[in-house]
């Protein structure tokens, strides 16, 4: 599903965030990327989601070389992914429902069909009763779950999550982790970045140290 082959990412200024990283994640797999902060976890996810381009090496998503893809093709590649960002990136000018509806609008799904799917996604993360709430009134854990609802609403084949349990207490964190496992159980490929090796106890682990893969 996703294949990295000798991928290096060098940022302007010379900092090498990733050095010759190679791995492959199959359909329906769940994989954790661990490492200290600044090890290159976020960079790896951004490269996979075609948000950034590799300096060298190839990245294949569903057999497509996303590093070489034209600008016009990128949006369509990104729609394969459900993205959960470290800082949520929720929109604070609209309520929970409208936040979750955004990916559907982008994909051209509106009206009643959109409403049905938005509510299904909110229900999945347990936020259906708060669909009219503004994100700012939600707790940290609820905001995280709202971000997850937005990521799954268009039923992507791959979920990419950057530190989804980063700022949450242990109870919340295990709830969220259970949520990801339930998605994985229904066949969604999940790639999770976390600095917390404990939550990665079960599952495949890719450990990064200063941008280098450590097996």
């Amino acid at each position, binding site marked *: 599903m996703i294949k990295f082959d000798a991928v290096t990412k060098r940022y302007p200024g010379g900092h090498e965030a990733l050095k010759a990283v190679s791995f492959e994640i199959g359909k329906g797999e769940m994989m954790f990327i661990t490492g200290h902060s600044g090890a290159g976890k976020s960079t790896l996810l951004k490269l996979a989601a075609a948000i950034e381009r590799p300096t060298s090496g190839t990245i294949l998503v569903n057999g497509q070389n996303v590093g070489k893809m034209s600008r016009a093709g990128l949006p369509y590649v990104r729609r394969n*992914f459900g993205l959960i*960002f470290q800082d949520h990136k929720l*929109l604070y000018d609209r309520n929970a429902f409208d936040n979750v509806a*955004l990916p559907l609008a982008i994909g*051209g799904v509106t*009206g009643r069909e959109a409403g049905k799917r938005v509510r299904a996604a909110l229900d999945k993360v347990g936020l259906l009763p708060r669909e009219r709430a503004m994100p700012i009134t939600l707790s940290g854990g609820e905001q995280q779950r709202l971000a997850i609802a937005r990521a799954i609403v268009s039923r992507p084949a791959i979920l990419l999550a950057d530190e989804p349990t980063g700022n949450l207490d242990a109870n919340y964190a295990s709830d969220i982790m259970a949520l990801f496992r339930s998605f994985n159980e229904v066949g969604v490929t999940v790639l999770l970045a976390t600095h917390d090796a404990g939550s990665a106890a079960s599952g495949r682990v890719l450990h990064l140290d200063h941008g280098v893969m450590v097996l």
Partner: protein
Amino acid sequence: MKEWINAHRQALMQVLKKLRAAPLANLIMAGVIGATLSLPAGLYLLIDNLSVAANGIETEPQLTLFLALDAPAETVKDLDRRLRAHPDVSEFHFLGRDAAWQALQEKSGLTDALGDLEKNPLPDAFVIHARNADPATIEAMQREFSGWPHVEHAQLDAAWVKRLYALLQLGNKVVLILAGLLGFALVAIIGNTIRMQILTQREEIEVSKLIGATDRFIRRPFLYAGTLHGLVGGITAWAILYAALYAFNLSVDDLARLYASDFRLRPLGLEASLLLVCCSALLGWLGSYWAVSRYLSHLERA
């Protein structure tokens, strides 16, 4: 197709909702665009009315053909035939030298002085009215007639018409230049307004791009906003012109009555009105396209 319509409807609804949220700001915007556009449109209106007035007083420029004094007698018949057949001549009459001489003597009161002349110094002449007041045609006629046999001189009586037309043409050029400059200003004004809107929606754009929005999706609502600004501004300009004209005509009426004339300023025609509004909408579209493209390419570089 259905999806396409749906996407546009969605963008338009979004924009209308935003516009409703800030009525005063949008009213001011419409006023600014309206005032900007009413300048060249007003000047155009003025020149258009002047042209109409000029057409009214034209009295068709006259050409006078003076025959050579030694022209043989059949020349008059020959020229008469030629003028009758000429497509650009609307009417003409012959002015015989004897008749002219008599008229001159009677009119001028110089009978004594003129009587001292031993013979009639006036030539035979044709006075010709052109079918078409266009200076180029008349000049061509003048050249053509000068070349005919035994025509001593073809004189254009209405050089001032040419000057007036040249002035009106100059005025039209001024309108074009003014329209071009203010059009550019309008693109900048609307572009800047859209840029402000983009800045307030920066996060939405960023997130949308991250989760797979195409540039077109992001651009669409802003293009609608810019076009609507232009459209409403164009209509405002038209309304400003109409109101100004109405006020003007009230005074013109009084004046015209004093001079027993029915002169009134004509409002902008249907075509010109449509052109004004459409151009304004187009400029709005252009301004917002420019603003969004600039922002998107800025995102790409970041």
